[in-house]
């Protein structure tokens, strides 16, 4: 921590070198400090019965921004927690109605699901507008330029099969009619078609993912720099197939290892009468859980690391070119450590994990800049979020997290 403390003030006032240069990203947050912020925030959330949540979120974002130095200058967050509070209430009501409706009647569940589908792209866009419109670097507000229409278009490949499947499953779900043979056949057919629909959704998910990333990265803007992403759908599919491959291979390896360990245990301790005891079964379950978590701790960092690199390396603007070199091995090691320690400390390690993950993911990104950012000037119409004309996002302060 000492070197960071010493380096942070030293980095900023250096004279800027000639224009083409690399803007390094550094993250100076500390796990132990964020732990204390987190602890006090949690208490305040409990005492206020959850109403403090948006204020806690604003504080968390401010802490992470103040510690994210791009070329020696921290990001700043201008979001007003009271506005975020309105968005929080809106989202809470929406999600509460949705999950409540689903429990009470199938018809209400369909209606609620349709409403959620209908408003989700608009909320997504509003949250991107809010977060970026309230983020600034060197006093320049960022912005999000994605249009409402594009937000809906990006969701089409996800929505069409999903809507068809939901409508169909609600209408065609079998009910026990009293005739055992007929009912069994209906249940079997229902199960098979559900599986088929899930398969189609899974096959389309890389396409959706690519469209989401395109929408986001094409919308990012700071001053005159408008983001452009050149992300080929084929490469996202390739990553998807690799992900499936990694999942299968890691599952086989981890399970083989578990069998070897279990076999070793039986060999060492013998298989007496006590091998059938409750403890043997508990051990079996524990090994199963470890296998499950290990596989996830391989697959998730693999997907996250490769996707971050794929999306950001394809992103540029007139003067900026992003480079992300997040290594899977490092993210895997960190994820494993984070999960283990969070589990062992019953969640107390979570703030440390959040800081460590942010550091790893941010510091692997560098930005090549062909101009001197100090020459940039905010665009006339691009002032502040409350002047962009789109009231909804800012009025409700919707922030679903980026």
């Amino acid at each position, binding site marked *: 921590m000492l070197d960071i403390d010493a380096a942070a003030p030293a*980095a*900023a006032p250096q004279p800027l070198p000639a224009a083409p240069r690399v803007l390094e990203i550094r993250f100076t947050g500390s796990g132990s400090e964020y732990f*204390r912020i987190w602890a*006090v925030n949690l208490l305040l959330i409990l005492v206020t019965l959850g109403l403090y949540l948006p204020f806690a979120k604003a504080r968390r974002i401010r802490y992470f921004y103040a510690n994210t130095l791009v070329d020696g200058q921290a990001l700043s967050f201008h979001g007003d927690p009271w506005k975020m509070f309105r968005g929080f209430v809106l989202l809470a009501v929406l999600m509460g109605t949705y999950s409540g409706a689903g429990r009470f009647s199938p018809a209400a569940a369909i209606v609620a699901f349709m409403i959620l589908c209908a408003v989700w792209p608009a909320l997504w866009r509003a949250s991107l507008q809010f977060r970026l419109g309230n983020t*600034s670097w060197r006093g320049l507000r960022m912005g999000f330029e994605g249009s409402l229409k594009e937000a809906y278009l990006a969701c089409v490949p996800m929505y069409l099969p999903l809507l068809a499947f939901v409508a169909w499953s609600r209408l065609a779900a079998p009910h026990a009619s*009293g005739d055992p043979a007929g009912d069994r056949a209906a249940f079997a057919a229902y199960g098979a078609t559900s599986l088929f629909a899930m398969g189609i959704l899974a096959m389309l998910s890389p396409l959706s993912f690519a469209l989401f990333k395109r929408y986001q990265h094409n919308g990012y803007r700071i001053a005159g720099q408008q983001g452009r992403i050149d992300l080929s759908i084929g490469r996202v599919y390739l990553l998807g197939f690799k992900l499936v491959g990694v999942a299968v291979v890691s599952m086989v390896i981890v399970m083989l290892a578990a069998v070897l360990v279990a076999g070793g245990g039986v060999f060492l301790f013998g298989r007496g009468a006590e091998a059938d005891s409750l403890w043997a079964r508990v051990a079996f379950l524990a090994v199963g859980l470890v296998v499950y978590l290990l596989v996830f701790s391989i697959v998730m960092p693999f997907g996250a690391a490769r996707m971050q690199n794929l999306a950001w390396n394809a992103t540029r603007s007139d003067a900026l070119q992003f480079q992300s070199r997040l290594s899977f091995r490092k993210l895997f090691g960190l994820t494993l450590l984070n999960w283990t320690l969070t589990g062992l400390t019953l969640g107390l390690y979570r703030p440390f994990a959040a800081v460590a993950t942010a550091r790893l993911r941010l510091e692997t990104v560098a930005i090549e800049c062909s101009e001197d950012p100090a020459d940039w000037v905010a665009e006339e119409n691009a002032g502040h979020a409350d002047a962009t004309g789109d009231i909804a996002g800012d009025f409700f302060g919707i922030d679903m997290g980026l």
Partner: protein
Amino acid sequence: MTEAPRLTADWFDGRSARARPVEVWLDGAALHFGDHSAPLAGLTWPERQRHGQRQILLPGGGLLSFPDAAAFDAWARASGRGDSVVVRWQQSWRLSLLSLVLLVAGLAAAYLWGLPWAVDRAVDVLPRSTERALGEHLLQGMDGDWLKPSRLSAEQQRAWQLRWSGVLARAKAQGGPVVPEHHEIHFRDGGKALGPNAFALPGGDIVITDALLDLLADEPDAVMTVLGHELGHVQHRHGLRLMLRAGAVSVVASVIVGDFSTLLSAAPAMLAGNAYSRDGEREADLYGRTLARAGGVDTSRMAVFFRRLAEKRQASVDNNPVAIAISTHPADDERVKFFSEP
């Protein structure tokens, strides 16, 4: 008059990205920077922290950036800016650990007293019709996943229904306990996963599995007592209470544990369900025994049920190394005694 302490800052005006070095000082209700000033009320001050840069956000989108955090903190203190209570707690290990302790104590108190109270109020308010819709929806969901249509013939099902309505009629004539307005027995095949089982859903739908009826084909009195027990759950609206409790606990857990893992956030909800249901089981046992006895049923036949259940459980555990029966019911012996005592 003493000179106000001054500090240099990088001023970004929100239009140009070029930093302008300025001197900053406080004067009464205004912050001065270079040739400009802004009223204190419109500013957003940074919180004191050990790490990161300090920024004062100006109204209108500009900001003053202070790369040297320690110098800023010293200047702010010298200028008479105190820390907020929240910051003082955040910066102290003792107070932040204390807030964790208070958090745990608060959660425990909410769980022990607040939650049951809130659930009882919610159950009083929720109309029976909502509860019924909820139960029907649950049953529909289970019909897709765990439950298959019953293998019992229509006559067998009718025979059980007749016997049950006979018990209810006799119990009513004998002045037995109040029976919920709506309830319905459903016969289903629960497969190996559910085994011999019966359960009540919110709203009065009671499901009894084929395996249970096979197990007790020659012990109709035990079946009637089991149904009485389930009717007790319906009468006391245990299903709804359980769902509300589990829902509330999982919401709180997901706020604390966050996106870390659904596994972790599901665990407290499951534990809550288990801990609470023990009292519920005793309540339902009492109701079931009273009702069944009023309906002329020999409730001591439950002893046979528990014995056969235990044998079956032992057999399935012997065959299946993964099956660990974590029963939510009170110990069998205790219940056998309860159903047999005069």
